[in-house]
Structures are given as C-alpha cells and as structure tokens.
C-alpha cells in the first residue's frame, strides 16, 4: 500500500484510470515523476468528467453568443439577460452513476451540486427541473431506483426551499443497467452583481466554507468516467451523503457575502473536490494558490493530503477574499452556523502548492492540469439515417384500445406521483408548475416571467441522433410558447455511452450537430451544459440522450396560462391536421415498431407557429398544449381535467395520423367562443381546424357518425395514474 507522498509509477496511473500515453504526457509536462497525491489530482482533472477531453472539440459547434448572452460556457453556469437589469443563470448536470449505486443520495447530491453551480454565480436559485430515464420497471431494483431517485430529488430541493417545477420521466430497457438523473437549476441575479470563479490578487486569502471534509466520494470523478460492470457494487464506498440543511445555510451565507462585496471569487467543490475547485479557480484567474491542508476542517482522523485533495464531501465552497475582509466573512459564516477556515492565499505565478503539517504535499503547474489537459479527436462513425417504416394497415383497428394503452403506459401517463413529492409553491412565485407545458415563475418583485423546460425524445435520438436532437430543441421552444415565453438560452446534458466506441462517438457528434443547427436556426444560444459519457453496463450503451434545457422569458405576465378545458371552450388544432407516424410513440407502444425516419424540423414553420401561440397565451385568449409524444389523443386526455370534450376527426383525414401522429408545429388550442374572432385573426394564415367543443364529463372522439372513443374523466384519471401507481404506496 503506497503512501500519499510516495513516487507514483505507471501501474498507479492505470489504477487511476489514466492511459499509458496520458501517464507519459503527465511525466513529461511535469519534468519529473509525481507523487501519489499529484497523480490523484491529475487523474481527477484529466478524467472525462472534468476535462471534457473527448467532447470539447465538438462542443465548439454550439452557437454560444447573442445579444442577451452575459456568460456563455466556461463558468459554473451560463447567464442571459432577461430585462430590467436581471439575468437568468442556469445549467444542467448529470448524476447518473452515483444514482444507480445509491439512488436516494445520488440524486440528492446531484441536486445539491447543480444548485451550487448556480448560486456561486451570485444568483438565487428560483427553480429546479429533473430529467430522468429509467429501465424496464419489471427489471430488478428498478422500482427501488425510481422511488429512491424521486425521494432524493424531492427531499433535497424541498429542504433548501427551491421549487422543482418541471422535468421528464421516461423508461426504456436500455437504461436498466444505467439510469439517467439530469438536474437543472435556474437562478436569477442582478446583471451587475454576477460573480465569477476567478482567483485573483496575490496576497488575497483562500477560505474554505461549509461541511467538514470526510473520506466520501474519493475517486468520484474517475468513477463517473468509468463504465459499469457486474462489480458496480464494489464502487459503493465512493457514495456521498447530502445535507440540504447545510446547503441552505451555504446559499444564504454565500449570497450575503457576495451581496456585501466580501467575495473576490467563489467556486463550489464539486467533482474532484478541492482539486478541481483550486486548479480551475487558479486557471481562470491566471494565478497560483498556496494551501495549508492542515487547516482544512476534517470530519475524520488521519486524513492524508491525497484524501483531502480528492474527497468529494458535499456542501463545501472555496472562496477568495481580501485579507481585511476575512474577519467579517468568518463572522457571517459563524452566524449561519457554518464551518469556515482560512486555508491559504493567492500567489503570483501559475503554480498550486500545498503543505501539510509543515511538509510539502505537492506543487503543480496549473496549465497542464486544466487548459493543457488532453483533448481527443476520437474516431467516430456517423449513424446511418434510419430507413422509412411501412405503416401497418389500420382498417378495423380498435383505436380506443390504443388510446387506453398509451394513457396507461408509464411513458405517457401522468407524472403526478413523481411531482407531488416536490415542493411547487415555495418562493411564492410559481405561475405554472409541473403538469404545465413548461414551468413559469415570476422574477422576485417584478412581473417578468421566467420559463424553463427540459426535453429529449431518446427514442427518436436512437433512430437518428441528429434529427432527434434537433427535434428536442424545437419541442422545448413549443413548450415555452404554451406559457407565452420566448426562448433566450439553452443548457444541455449529453448522456451517451463510451466515447471510445466509434459508433457511440458518432451518435454524440451527430447529436451535437443537431443541437447546434437547431439552436442556430432558432437563434437561441447554448450557454452551459454538461457531458456524461460511459453510460453503459457490460458493453450495453444507453440510448443517445441529449437532454435539452431551455429557458424563456415573458416580459410582462398579465394572465396565468391554463392547460385544461373549461366548459364551452372551442377546441381547435393549430397546424397540420396530420402528424407523422414515423418514429412515433404510437408505433413503438401499440405496434412494437420502434422505427421510421425522424423528420428534420421545418424551422420556419415552427417559429411562425410558436410566435402565434406565444401571442395568444400572453393575451390570455387560449389554453394551449403542443402535440408531441403520443400525439393529439394524449393531449386531448391531458386537457380533460374537470371538463370533458367531444371532437370529430376532420373530413377525409387519416384517423391514425390525426390522433397519433407526431412532429411538426401542431398545437391543441381551447378558448371561449367569444375569443374565436380574435384567435382566427391572430393565427394569420396558419392552418386552424375546429375539432369540437369542451363540455360534459368524457373525452369523445367521433369519425362521422361513428364514435371512435368514449372515455369518462374518471377512466382517464385512472388510466393516467396506472403507470406510476407504485410510487404512491409508502
């Protein structure tokens, strides 16, 4: 067993997940062999998770600038201007591997991490969203995983007092051995009060705030860059425990420190703990640090420099401050009941040096670890465009049975059992929460509406990563339109298998191009995000899952958007009568045909329709939902909360494509008769088909004289509740 200060060798490097080439590169850049602690730091910062070594060159494709962009990729989170001197600060991040090992703590600490990324920018978190992917619910442990993840997200967000207002939950056997937990946080800050994680000013002090350091999660960063095998269990010791109470105190203390101008720079200790925060801060600030590791508050006896640098204990921050402010800072932390300790200082020159009990622990140049970290142009094989699907014959088909099946599936059923475990009203600013097409909150003290949504149709992405990713961006825009919001920025979380597999790398490259093109065509910049590779178990990769998080703005909220039918509403379809059944949920779930071409979005048509819907919703004229997963039939059922509806399949329309088709700019609108002229004027030229009227206590679909479907409100509620009922049991 080597000691922290013993010289490392190739074998240790391989142990730490570095390749032989990387080991040589390391020794070369250092001009000497590192000790074990130094190797650990390199391994963590050069891990895929921290270095983005396989993805960086491709992420360059993203449009990251725009008139509203205040901070693009490169900081803890991105920031865009939302008017009246406010900025929205947001980012999405994955916590997939930890959540598979210990769902409750894994998901909880994922939420903690993304909150810190946002409030370290000086922003107050105002909402959380969570995009989740699970395997086959019959698979071993799967219900346990769903339950643990949902409770973990809820308990953490609820306790810190940030509402969880949106997200996704979907299921596919490809995730049975590797679930996805992507958490997004949106915060708000005054534009002139934004903070950056740039260590500056030699002589300034380096302070440690928050929980004491234990041995938790050592190697977390390298684990997240490692595929699972049957021995996943043995990775268990690296699981961390979250403490939302301390996180809440950190939020309040840090925002107070920043508001009082006492912080020069601030950075959370996320993946790779003190190592990444110290070196990233130094790199961004173009300076060095001196740290006395003996002053790091510890929870356990005899922790070595290796452990102190690599521990991933949660709820910890690194802060740079002027010497004269230290006393006041410590006083504020003490008032909030937080541990704080002065552990070092900023130095000129690009080196981070640390001592421990008087002896030198390590001394490393910053550049090789951060800016000069390895970058790979991994070989990739772009996916073949999926082949067209021959539609089955629908003659004599029992569509009612199909609708029942769709509504009863966990994919398309209600997610209430999940979001009822999330606080949706804390903050007293929620205009639209889970269950709405997108989340909408008021910026404190204003009437500015801040909207957010997460989207990814992984089935489509598995058929065509490029078009699927592009469609995710477009769907996000449609969702925002339904709350009257205009897109202002995108964050993303790119979940894929091993980048060392050219096919997976090809999916990644195609998806990134799809996101980039869609964002460019819609004029929405990407300002932050995260890449999660190695999502596979025993060589089985997940579906390519590029999750899109989109943020939008309503300059002045005057009406609360609604999403359910009211008695007497006129019900109309904006957009083409037919959707496209190719690559649809309907074929997947009712015909077991996960196949077909995923159309590339018609950006012009999508923009035009979104514009119209946005206007109608802002004026409070209509209730709107976009038609996506499962098609119009599912949207009709979703809008039947307390009032039913009777609609007719338009003359000569193909019932299947009308009811179950997807893709393209289609929205279901509901509005009082008296608004009809105004609505017709507003849609200016776009196709608008009147389908029927809302009323009664059932969803009825007629084809001429024939009644295709009759579902009472009670039946709908029952069906939509089925999929996740197990979450309602204790």
């Amino acid at each position, binding site marked *: 067993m080597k000691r922290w200060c013993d010289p490392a060798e190739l074998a240790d490097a391989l142990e730490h997940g570095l390749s032989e080439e990387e080991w040589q590169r390391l020794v070369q850049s250092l001009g000497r062999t590192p000790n074990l602690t130094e190797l650990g730091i390199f391994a963590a910062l050069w891990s895929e998770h921290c270095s983005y070594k396989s993805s960086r060159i491709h992420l360059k494709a993203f449009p990251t600038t725009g008139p509203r962009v205040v901070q693009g990729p490169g900081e803890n989170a991105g920031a865009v201007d939302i008017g009246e001197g406010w900025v929205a600060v947001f980012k999405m991040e994955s916590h997939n591997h930890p959540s598979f090992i210990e769902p409750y703590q894994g998901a909880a600490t994922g939420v903690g991490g993304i909150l810190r990324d946002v409030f370290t920018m000086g922003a107050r978190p105002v909402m959380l969203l969570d995009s989740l992917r699970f395997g086959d619910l019959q698979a071993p442990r799967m219900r346990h995983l769903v339950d643990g993840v949902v409770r973990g997200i809820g308990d953490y967000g609820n306790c810190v007092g940030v509402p969880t207002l949106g997200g996704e939950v979907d299921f596919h056997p490809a995730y049975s051995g590797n679930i996805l937990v992507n958490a997004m946080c949106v915060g708000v800050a005054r534009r002139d009060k934004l903070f950056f994680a740039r260590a500056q000013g030699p002589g300034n002090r380096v302070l440690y705030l928050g929980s004491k350091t234990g041995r938790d999660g050592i190697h977390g960063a390298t684990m997240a860059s490692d595929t699972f095998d049957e021995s996943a269990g043995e990775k268990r010791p690296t699981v961390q425990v979250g403490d939302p*109470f301390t996180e809440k105190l950190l939020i309040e203390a840090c925002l107070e420190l920043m508001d009082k101008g006492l912080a020069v720079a601030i950075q959370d200790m996320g993946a790779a703990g003190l190592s990444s925060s110290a070196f990233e801060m130094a790199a961004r600030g173009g300076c060095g640090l001196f740290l006395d590791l003996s002053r790091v508050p510890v929870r356990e006896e005899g922790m070595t420099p290796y452990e102190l640098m690599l521990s991933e204990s949660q709820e910890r921050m690194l802060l740079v401050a002027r010497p004269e402010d230290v006393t006041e800072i410590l006083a504020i932390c003490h008032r909030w009941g937080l541990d704080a300790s002065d552990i070092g200082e900023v130095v000129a020159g690009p080196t981070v040096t640390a001592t421990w009990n008087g002896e030198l622990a390590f001394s490393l140049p910053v550049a090789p670890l951060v800016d000069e970290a390895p970058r790979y142009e991994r070989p990739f094989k772009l996916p073949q465009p999926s082949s067209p699907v021959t539609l089955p014959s629908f003659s004599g088909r029992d569509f009612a049975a199909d609708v029942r099946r769709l509504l009863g599936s966990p994919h398309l059923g209600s997610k209430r059992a999940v979001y009822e475990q999330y606080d949706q009203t804390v903050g007293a600013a929620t205009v639209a929460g889970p269950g709405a097409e997108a989340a909408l909150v008021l910026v404190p003290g204003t009437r500015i509406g801040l909207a957010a949504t997460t989207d990814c149709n992984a089935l489509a992405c598995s058929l065509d990563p490029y078009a699927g990713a592009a469609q995710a961006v477009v769907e996000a825009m449609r969702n925002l339109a339904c709350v009257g919001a205009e897109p202002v920025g995108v964050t993303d979380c790119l979940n894929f298998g091993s980048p060392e597999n050219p096919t997976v790398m090809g999916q990644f490259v195609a998806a990134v191009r799809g996101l980039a093109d869609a964002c460019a065509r819609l004029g929405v910049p990407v300002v932050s995000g995260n890449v999660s590779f190695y999502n596979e178990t025993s060589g089985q990769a997940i579906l390519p899952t590029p999750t899109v998080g989109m943020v939008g703005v309503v300059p002045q909220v005057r009406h609360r958007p609604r999403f359910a039918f009211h008695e007497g509403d006129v019900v109309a379809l904006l957009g083409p009568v037919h959707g496209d059944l190719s690559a649809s949920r309907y074929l997947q779930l009712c015909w077991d045909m996960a196949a077909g071409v995923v159309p590339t979005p018609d950006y012009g048509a999508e923009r035009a329709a979104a514009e119209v819907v946005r206007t109608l919703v802002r004026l409070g004229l209509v209730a709107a939902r976009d038609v996506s997963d499962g098609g119009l039939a599912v949207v009709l059922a979703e809008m039947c909360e307390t009032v039913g509806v009777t609609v007719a399949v338009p003359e000569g329309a193909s019932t299947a494509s009308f009811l179950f088709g997807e893709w393209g700019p289609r929205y279901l609108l509901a509005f009082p008769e008296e608004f009809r002229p105004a609505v017709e004027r507003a849609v200016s030229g776009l196709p608008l088909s009147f389908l029927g009227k809302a009323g009664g206590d059932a969803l009825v679909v007629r084809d001429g004289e024939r009644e295709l479907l009759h579902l009472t409100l009670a039946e709908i509620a029952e069906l939509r509740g089925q999929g996740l009922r197990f979450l309602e049991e204790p």
Partner: protein
Amino acid sequence: MKVEVRVRLKDGVLDPQGEAIRRVLGRLGYGEVRSVRVGKLIFLDVDGDDPEHVRKRVEEACRELLANPVIEDFEVKT
C-alpha cells in the same frame, strides 16, 4: 417472538442529523457532548419459536429492506 434490530450509519459516513443535534445541544449548554450519531431501533414481533431461524429471517429482511447496506450496518438481537 420479540426481535430488536439496531441500524447505524457506517463509521465515516456523514451524519448531518447527528451534527445538527450536536450543535444545538452545545447552544443549549450541553457543550460536553462531543459527537452525536443517530441510528434506528426497530422492534419486530415475529411468529416462530426457533430463535436461530427467526434471526436468519430477520437478517435477510435487514439486507433486503430494513438497512441500506451502502451506508448502514445492522445488528439483530433476539
């Protein structure tokens, strides 16, 4: 048969609850309390009269449900 299960966090696993309790006890004048860790005490009433068998079953139940092997240790007392 009455069985008692004691569940406690593994050493080294953070116990935020215990830590919060310790701080408050200190404020209430119990500064002499150096550390607090909180575990679970589970009282079971189990059918069966063969103590060995009952203990085995309860141990299985602990592994399956009552304790979280990732962060907790357990102890069964018959």
